[in-house]
Structure formats: C-alpha cells, structure tokens
C-alpha cells in the first residue's frame, strides 16, 4: 500500500474563521467517505469499462446489428448492467452521505456559524446582496450535487448553512484533491498566469459563479492591490464566502449578488480578466451564450477570458468515455452537464465576439500542499467529474 492510496485526514483541512468545527466523529465520517470514494473510483471504477467491453457492447451489437451511436445509447444499455448499477448506487449513496454528514455538522452549530459570519459581514461594503435577484431556473430546477437546498437554500432567513455545507464536504468528494482550503483550482490559476504572463497585473478581475470563493480568493491574495469582483445569484453562499475571504485576509474581493446574464452595471471593458471555474456546466443552453457575450463586453482590450471545466466531448473522445464522464449529469443532479460538455466551447467563445486566433486551450492541475494532499489523479483511475485537473478554455482579447 502506498501513501497515495490513502486519503489525507480531515484534520488536515484548514479551518478559516467560519469553517465549522468538526467533532472527532464528524471528521471520522469524512475520513470514511474520502477513502470510500477513492476505492469506488480508483479500484472499482474500471469495472464499468470492462462490463461495457465484455458484455454490454457485445449484447448491444447482437441485438441492434450495430455499435452504440452516442453516449445516451451506452447509458441506456449500461443502466441494465448489474455491475454498473451497483457501482452507481454506491456512488450515489456516497454523495448523499456526504450531504447528510456535512449538513449534520453544520446545522448543529449553525447559531455559532451565523454569529461568526455576521462579525465578518456586518457593515462591510464588500458584501452586496440584492433581494431582487431571482434564482434562475437552471439553479432552481433540481438541487445541484444533491445538496439539499442547493447554493441558494436557507434553513432560516439570512443563514450561511448552504455555504458552510458546500465548503466542508468538498474534501470528501475529492478525497482531499483540492487541498487544505479546497482552493487548488484557484491556486492553479495563479500559478498558470504567473508563468504565462510574468509580471502581469490585471486592474480588475471578475469571477462568475463564485459560490464560497474557493477559486476567487487566491486571485485576490495574488493581486492584493487590485480589485476582484465575485458574483453569484445565491445569497447564502455569498454571505459565507465573504466571511471566509475576510477571515483569510482577502479584503480586496467584493462579493455581489447578481446574475451574470446581465452585467449592465459594469461598463464595456471594465475588467482585465474574466473567469469562471467549474461554473458554465451549472447554467443552461440559453444562459451560457448570454453570459459569454456579457463577459466579452466587459472585458478590456488585451484582457483575458478563461473558463476551467472538465474536458468537452470532442469528436475524438471515445463514446464510452463521454458516457462515464456524463455520470454526474444524471446521478448527481447536474442537469446541464451533458449538453454543456457536448458544446464546442471555442465556437461559443467566437460567437461571443472573439476571433479564432484569440483562442487557446491548456491543461491546469490543482496546486496543493503535496506533503499532505494528493496530486491530481487522471487517466484510468480518474474520478470523472471530480478530478482536480481541468481543461482551460481561454482567449486574450485583441488590443484596441
């Protein structure tokens, strides 16, 4: 057994000012789940491909006289396979347990967490909530990630339960792959931009779909003299995210409740960097192009647009891989995941106003403290949908 076969302990998760305090047993529940998820994806996951190659595909070909034409046909066939069914049931349950475990830890100490958040939030102009912002249909249709209440739910008015629950359980579903503050994605962005454009200092950065700020706070800390604007439609995660950021010393980040489909509050060319991190798949077919168009409009000439997502389903990607990457869409309440990954994001960016020659793609791997947390696992043992490695779809807007 190697060290990387075992998930890091929950006690290594960093506790910022509004992080819930785990009891011994609450930490142990997350330790169980983290190792369970590692085993189910890393050891048992490969059985899905075997079941497909050895019996599901041959049976399909025998019955239909042809191979499956798309990932949906594979899914329909695999959903009748006993191995895949059981594996999916295990995984779905681990997702539900992660929510129950997180919520029981958060809700039992909610009075304390709300009080701590208020201390960081009251009277601060860097938190702007707006009751007029409606929860869009793509956020309200189902509870994303099977999080009861999703990002916008409240157990009582004005609470931080949604943010605290989201934050405290990321460790379990990624088996620690995003690091002590679950911010390995944001730290990767900082590392990438410093290599790509040494010395570059964007005047203003806009992050869309910020939730609790994992990936935006590292940008604020990396550019302490610049302003980061972080928007989301859900007030509960913004309350928590703002308090979290303040406690981590990020005072130059403004959390604003706003729908990214309408950024009319900002003039053209207002930002030097517009960013989404694992967000576009939580929008919708009509919202996504509207958001990209607005982002292009508020981006200054010479500025950077960057989107971190799991890889798109290109024509070169085997259909089985597309199917297994779709698991979260139908089993973990990610209803736009499948359609979004089938889009040609580069073409979507061209439609938003870029020239083909402005575009680039690159790979980004989570930056974590590797003495404690694991390096991203990709390839055969990858936990699809949760791998701490992303494809970055970007563009530099042409200078005027």
């Amino acid at each position: 057994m190697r060290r990387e076969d075992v998930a890091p302990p929950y006690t290594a998760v960093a506790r910022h000012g509004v992080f819930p305090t785990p009891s011994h047993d609450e930490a142990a529940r997350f330790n169980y789940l983290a190792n369970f998820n590692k085993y189910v994806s890393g050891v048992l996951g490969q059985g899905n491909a075997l079941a497909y190659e050895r019996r599901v595909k041959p049976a399909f070909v025998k019955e239909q006289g042809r191979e499956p034409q798309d990932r949906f046909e594979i899914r329909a066939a695999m959903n009748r396979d006993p191995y895949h069914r059981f594996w999916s049931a295990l995984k779905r349950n681990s997702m539900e347990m992660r929510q129950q475990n997180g919520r029981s830890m958060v809700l039992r100490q909610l009075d304390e967490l709300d009080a701590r958040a208020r201390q960081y939030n009251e009277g601060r102009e860097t938190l702007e909530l707006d009751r007029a912002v409606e929860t869009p249909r793509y956020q309200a249709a189902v509870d994303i990630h099977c999080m009861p209440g999703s990002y916008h739910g409240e157990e009582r008015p004005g609470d931080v339960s949604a943010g605290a629950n989201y934050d405290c359980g990321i460790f379990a579903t990624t088996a620690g792959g995003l690091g002590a503050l679950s911010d390995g994605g944001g730290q990767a962005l900082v590392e990438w931009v410093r290599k790509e454009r040494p010395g570059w200092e964007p005047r203003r950065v806009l992050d869309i779909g910020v939730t609790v700020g994992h990936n935006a706070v590292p940008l604020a800390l990396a550019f302490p003299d610049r302003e980061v604007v972080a928007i989301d439609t859900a007030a509960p995660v913004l309350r928590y995210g703002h308090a979290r950021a303040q406690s981590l010393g990020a005072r130059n980040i403004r959390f604003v409740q706003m729908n990214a489909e309408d950024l009319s509050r900002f003039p053209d060319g207002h930002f030097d960097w517009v960013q989404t991190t694992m967000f576009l798949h939580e929008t919708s077919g009509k919202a996504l192009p509207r958001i990209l168009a607005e982002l292009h409009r508020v981006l200054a000439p010479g500025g950077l647009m960057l989107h971190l997502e799991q890889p798109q389903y290109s024509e070169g990607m085997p259909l089985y891989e597309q199917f297994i990457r779709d698991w979260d869409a139908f089993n973990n309440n990610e209803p736009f995941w499948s359609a979004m990954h089938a889009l040609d994001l580069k073409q979507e960016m061209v439609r938003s106003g870029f020239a083909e020659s402005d575009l680039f793609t690159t790979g980004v791997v989570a930056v974590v403290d590797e003495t404690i947390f694991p390096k991203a696992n990709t390839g055969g043992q990858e936990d699809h949908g949760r791998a701490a490695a992303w494809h970055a779809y970007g563009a530099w807007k042409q200078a005027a």
Partner: protein
Amino acid sequence: MTEELDWVLRANAKAKGKRPQYFDDPALDRLLSITMALAGEVSVLRERLDTVERLLEAKGALRREDIETYAPDRDAAFERGARTREYIARVLRGVQQDLEALQQTEPPVEQVSRELRDS
C-alpha cells in the same frame, strides 16, 4: 448547539430532483443506503477507538475533550487511513470480486466437474 432548528431531521433533507432507482426492487435501494450508513458508523467507531488507544498509550489517561481535539500526525494519519481503506475493501469484497470476474472468462463449476469426471 443550534436550538430553534431540529437539525437532526433537517440534516437528512432530500435534495430536489427525482432520485434514480438503481435496482428492480426499491427496497434494495433503501437497504443499500442503510448498509452504507452502518458501514460508515462502524468505521467511525473504529477510528474513535484508535484515538482512545493512542491517547492512553501516550498519556495513560484522557479527557473526552482530548478525543474531540485529537489530530493525528502524518504517520498516525496514514496508519489510520490505511486501516480505513482495508476495512472498506473488506466490506466491498463482493464488488471487487465481481470486478475480477469481469477480467476472466470462467466456465461454471458444474462444467469443470463434468470434465474432471470424464478425464
């Protein structure tokens, strides 16, 4: 502790969105969720016992607060994690064996039995 909220019941809230049914009999879906929760709680008990053992070994006595605030060092964390992994593998043995069975092509034992009888 949060007073005005029955947090025990609220922690169990269902997420909006129809739950997929994985087995032909819905009772199997329910039984699996109960089995997995029980398996998790056994793991939690085992980890707690390990904490008690380590604290007693180090100090000869303990307060309950010591258990709640215990944080293993790197080696202890690995030993505990390795034991959790071993425990999970033991519980999921059947599924791992299903995986191994997929890697092989095996005739039924009845067939082997007939072959041995006749050879």
